[in-house]
Structures are given as structure tokens and as C-alpha cells.
């Protein structure tokens, strides 16, 4: 017999009617559709999340020299990330203090100053106003700080990763990252000298809320379904040597891989324990990539014993390291989520290459590793991510069904001994558990409820 389900009252609004009781909207095991679909909630996120907590902005290798700049966003704010003439990294608002024009329309470049294309106000790359055309038409002398470019007051790097926040009360970046720095260090340190250089990207746009990407970032439950076409393709010649993420196919929860939640919305999927720890272990899991047989032969001939250590540098590291709200290290990628509107997001997969930091690999071998590494990195966005993103778009569509209000994230919840809390406060659970999502939503709610004192800064 069918059962009618009464439609409940609409979620309670607070704060003068625009917003909601966040505890009602996000509960332990479920979240309300509105958090993905309501433009007012999105607007609130653009200050309370993108602004009040640390947001990833760029990698230092993208602005290696003094006066280099790139344009990026923090939430919806257009920014110029610049290494100024003194070598200091700044995140300037890409906005003229006169009447608001963006000052820079290029994605990247090198400039000591930015001149506004509208009336010609000219700013140093420290943000300081250098001069305006025909100043005698002004009664003021422009020495007041308010005419200098607004900038993100706190910009800090962790080993090359540049983050920014508008929140003067935020913890120092390294404390905010806390235990997630360990996998970040390991991810970096497998590369020579612990260094990577960003080298263009696979750039994907989807019509869906930005949180759909973050909810996916540590999700081990979707792999065999959402990525079925990838797994079948990667393994079409594999025989018994299963490639890529095939280990998810049979009872993934019984495997040694796990997820770990480390606080502040950050989490980590560690698939390394599934992979045999040996020289060539990562390389052996790679599916087919352009040039792989040629380069493998060449490395075996030229580098003997060391060949497979080198080839592993082109192989993809089996981890997902996620820093809330917009940063993920996975494989060899730095993935960044950029919210555009409540229903539109950019997901950018920056590629990384290695450098011969210790001078013990040699130029030709480094170039060969990088040539291979470009091709291994193009694999997942082309054969895997496109299917996830299609599913994100279809979630957004499904959530248009007004009366069916909840999405569930209770996998693993309430099963004895499944989820473990460790001494450092971190939480581990099996790889397909949704504990990561329940935990990052606690952080999301903490931020959405808070009343942060956001600030900008200008040169004096």
C-alpha cells in the first residue's frame, strides 16, 4: 500500500527573514536541499566561508619572479595575486578605487604598476596609488590610504600554497591546517626537493553548487558507479593487473585505505595502503597513457635500477587531500573549486611538474618524466571527472524537486566500532564512509553561524 508523506513546514527563517536556522537545515545525517539551491545562502557563504576562513588562492610557482601577477578570485571577489617589487606576495582587489573598474584584465603577466583603463589612475603593485591624471582638478592630495587598492589583509603560504582570509581572528594558516599538513608534506616530498611547478590545467565548468564538488572530494562510495566507464576503459587490456582505482570494486571497506577527518573542514582519503610499496608500485597501476611504453623502455636502458623510481614520479599519488572550502590535492593535481553562482562552479585541475631540485636526475630525464606526467594527469579529468560533473549537474537538477527536501549522508553513522576518534582529535573511517561530509558540514555550520569581523587592508 502506498503511504502519503505529509509535506512539513518550510525551514524556519532567522536574521530578519533572509536566512535559516542552520541546525535545522543541516542535521547529523541529512542536509536540506536549500543549502545547494538558495541564492541567499550562497550570498552568505561568500562572506562567511569565502572570506572568513582560509581560501586557497594560488601556487607560488605561478608568480616566480618579482612583479609577476595572476588574476584569481576569492569567492566572487576579483583579485590580482602579485609578487610585488619587494618580493612580497599580495592579494590585491582587482578594483580601481576611483569608480570600481577592474584594473587588470589579463590572466597573468609581469607589471610594476597597474593603470586603470578608465580614467588612468595609476597604482604600484604594492597597491599604493602612484598618481592620477590632472591632479589639480582635485581639492585633496590623495595621500589618504582610502585611495590605495584594497587588499586581502592576511595572505600566508604553506610550502608554496598561497591562502588568504579577510578574518583578522583566523588562526595562523599553519595552525588552521593542523594535521592535514602531514599528508600535504608527504605529497610534496615525494617530488625531488619537495617541489612542484604548476603547468596549465584541465578547466571544467559545471552547472551546480560548489559544495557538490567538495562533498565529492573524499567520497569513496561513488567510485565504482560514477566512474564505471573509466574503470572499464582503464582495464580493457589489463587482465589480472587491475589498473587505477579498481580496488574499489570488491568490498572497498575491508581494504586498508581509509578516510581521515583532521578538523576545520579538512579531510584526507589515503589509498596508499592499497598499493604495494615498492619501486614501480605506482607506475604499475597506471593505465595506458601516450608514450608510456617508449619511455619505460628508455628509462630501463638509461637508468637501470633507478628506472622505476623515476617512472613513479609520473605516476599518480593515490591520495585526496582536501582543505575546506576550495582546495584538493589528488594524484599530481592541485584542484581548485571556484563558486560562480549558487548553481555554477568552476573546477580547475592544475597540473604539476617536477624540477631537478637536487640536480641528481638530469635535464633529459626530468623532461621525459614531465612529458609522461602531463599525459597521466590528463587521464582522470578526461575519463573520470566528466562523469562526476555530469552527476553534480543532475543533483542540482534533482534538487529542484521542492517537496523532496533532504539529501542523506549517513553512511557509516551509528555502526559500532566503524568510526574511530584518535588522540590528535582526528577521525578515521572506512573509505566509503560519509563521515567526512558530516564533519565538514559541522565546520560549514560553525562558519555560517559565526559573526566574523571581516576586514580589508590598504597601504598606509
Amino acid at each position, binding site marked *: 500500500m502506498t503511504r502519503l508523506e505529509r509535506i512539513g513546514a518550510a525551514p524556519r527563517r532567522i536574521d530578519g527573514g533572509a536566512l535559516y536556522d542552520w541546525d535545522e537545515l543541516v542535521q547529523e545525517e541529512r542536509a536540506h536541499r536549500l543549502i545547494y539551491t538558495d541564492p541567499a545562502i550562497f550570498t552568505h557563504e561568500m562572506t562567511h566561508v569565502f572570506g572568513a576562513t582560509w581560501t586557497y588562492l594560488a601556487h607560488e610557482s605561478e608568480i616566480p619572479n618579482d612583479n609577476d601577477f595572476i588574476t584569481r578570485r576569492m569567492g566572487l571577489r576579483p583579485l590580482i595575486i602579485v609578487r610585488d617589487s619587494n618580493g612580497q606576495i599580495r592579494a590585491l582587489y582587482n578594483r580601481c578605487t576611483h569608480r570600481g573598474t577592474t584594473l587588470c584584465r589579463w590572466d597573468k603577466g609581469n607589471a610594476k604598476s597597474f593603470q586603470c583603463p578608465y580614467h588612468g589612475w595609476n597604482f604600484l603593485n604594492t597597491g599604493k596609488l602612484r598618481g592620477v591624471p590632472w591632479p589639480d582638478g582635485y581639492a585633496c592630495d590623495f595621500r589618504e590610504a582610502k585611495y590605495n587598492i584594497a587588499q586581502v589583509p592576511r595572505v600566508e603560504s604553506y610550502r608554496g600554497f598561497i591562502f588568504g582570509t579577510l578574518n583578522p581572528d583566523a588562526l595562523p594558516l599553519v595552525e588552521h591546517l593542523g594535521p592535514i599538513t602531514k599528508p600535504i608534506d608527504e605529497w610534496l616530498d615525494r617530488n625531488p626537493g619537495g617541489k612542484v611547478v604548476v603547468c*596549465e590545467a*584541465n578547466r571544467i565548468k559545471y552547472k551546480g553548487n560548489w559544495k557538490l564538488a567538495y562533498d565529492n572530494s573524499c567520497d569513496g562510495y561513488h567510485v565504482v558507479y*560514477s566512474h564505471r*566507464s573509466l574503470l*572499464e576503459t582503464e582495464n580493457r*587490456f589489463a587482465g589480472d593487473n587491475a589498473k587505477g582505482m579498481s580496488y574499489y570494486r570488491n568490498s572497498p571497506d575491508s581494504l586498508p585505505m581509509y578516510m581521515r577527518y583532521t578538523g576545520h573542514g579538512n579531510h584526507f582519503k589515503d589509498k596508499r595502503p592499497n598499493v604495494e610499496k615498492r619501486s614501480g608500485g605506482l607506475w604499475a597501476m597506471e593505465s595506458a597513457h601516450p*608514450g608510456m*611504453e617508449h619511455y619505460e*623502455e628508455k628509462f630501463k636502458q638509461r637508468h637501470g635500477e633507478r628506472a622505476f623510481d623515476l617512472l613513479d614520479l609520473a605516476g599518480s599519488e593515490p591520495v585526496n587531500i582536501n582543505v575546506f572550502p576550495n582546495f584538493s590535492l589528488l594524484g599530481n593535481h592541485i584542484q581548485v573549486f571556484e563558486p560562480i553562482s549558487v548553481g555554477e562552479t568552476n573546477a580547475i585541475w592544475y597540473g604539476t611538474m617536477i624540477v631537478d631540485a637536487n640536480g641528481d636526475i638530469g635535464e633529459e630525464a626530468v623532461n621525459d618524466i614531465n612529458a609522461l606526467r602531463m599525459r597521466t594527469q590528463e587521464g582522470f579529468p578526461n575519463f573520470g571527472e566528466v562523469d562526476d560533473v555530469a552527476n553534480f549537474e543532475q543533483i542540482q537538477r534533482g534538487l529542484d524537486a521542492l517537496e523532496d527536501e533532504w539529501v542523506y549522508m549517513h553512511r557509516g553513522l551509528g555502526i559500532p566500532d566503524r568510526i574511530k576518534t584518535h588522540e590528535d582529535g582526528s577521525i578515521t573511517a572506512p573509505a566509503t564512509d560519509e563521515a567526512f561530509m558530516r564533519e565538514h558540514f559541522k565546520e560549514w555550520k560553525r562558519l555560517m553561524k559565526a559573526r566574523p569581523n571581516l576586514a580589508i587592508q590598504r597601504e598606509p
Partner: protein
Amino acid sequence: MSIQAQSDPSKSSYYVSDALYRELIANFSDWQRDDRVVTDVAERDRFRMLIEREARLLDQLRYEDWIALYAPECIYWVPSTPNAGDPRREIAVMFDDRRRLEDRIYRLRTGFAWSQAPASRTVRLISNVEVFATDRDAVRMVRSNFLISEFWGDETRILTGWAGHRVMQNGDRCEIQAKQVNLIDCDQCIRNPSIFL
């Protein structure tokens, strides 16, 4: 016989080497030169028909017929920067050898490629076809502009740009050795980049 000569490029990839990359970059640099334009109408027509046929086969999802237009050791390259750059040091939107092209076809045919379920419907307009001579008699470079109307999900969108084909003439038969697809928005975020261009 070398390993390379024995190998089947559908199964293994021995031909994508540093030498190939260097040659590819050289072949796709400075080739659209006025002094190399082929003016012979019959010859230009032959290449225009090849490019138009390719477009039709892709619109009809006839992938086996499509890939048969390509040399066994081919390259399909969609750069992520407008100046194409060096694919050894830059991520491309796509950079495929034959095996990876066949991977794409295989993926689309699994029935589980959600980004193409249901499949996009496309109509390609090809225009401004120009043929250029190269240093090698049997090899021509072809520039064409394309405009792909793609209906997917619930809307029609446009993917546009220009393509460079490097084509080897073998008697009556033409083989595409390499195709470079230059989307005009190649360095921007692209929604559902999952069809052949």
C-alpha cells in the same frame, strides 16, 4: 626489426617520444604562410571534402569510420593555451595517441559514460578551408574553422575555433597524421568537454 616496428599502436605506445613531440611542435609552428597556400582548386577541394567527411562521421557517431581517416600512429591535440605551447610541459585539454583515442571511443560505448548518456547531438559547420604546402611533397597542412552546435542536457551550446590537420597523401588515399584543435576559449573553464572535436 625494432620493437617500434612490431608494435600495434592500438595496444602500446612506442611512437610518442621526445622526437615526436619536437617534430609535432615544429610541424605546427609557422605553417600558415601565404607563400605556401595551395591554389589548385581540385587539390583544395580534395582536402575540404576530407575535413567535411570527418565532421559528418563525428556528427553521426561513426567512430570506427572516423578513426580510419587517421594514420596508425596519429596525434589528436587540443591545447589549453591559445599559442598551443609545449605539450611536454603543459597540460592539454586533450593530447591523445591512437590508443587513447580508442579509449575514448571505448568509454563512450560502455553505456556508463554519464557525461554522454544520452549522447550529445552535434552539427558541425566547417569553413574557410585553406591548404598549405610543407617541406615534404606528400604532406599538406590544412586549416579550417569550425563551429560545433552541441545539444546536450536541455540546451544547445556552441564550441568553436579552428583546426590544423597534417595530412599525408598516399596515392589516392589521404591519412591524417595529426590534428590540432584550437578552441577559442581553450584556456577557460569548459562545460562537459566530452565529445570529439
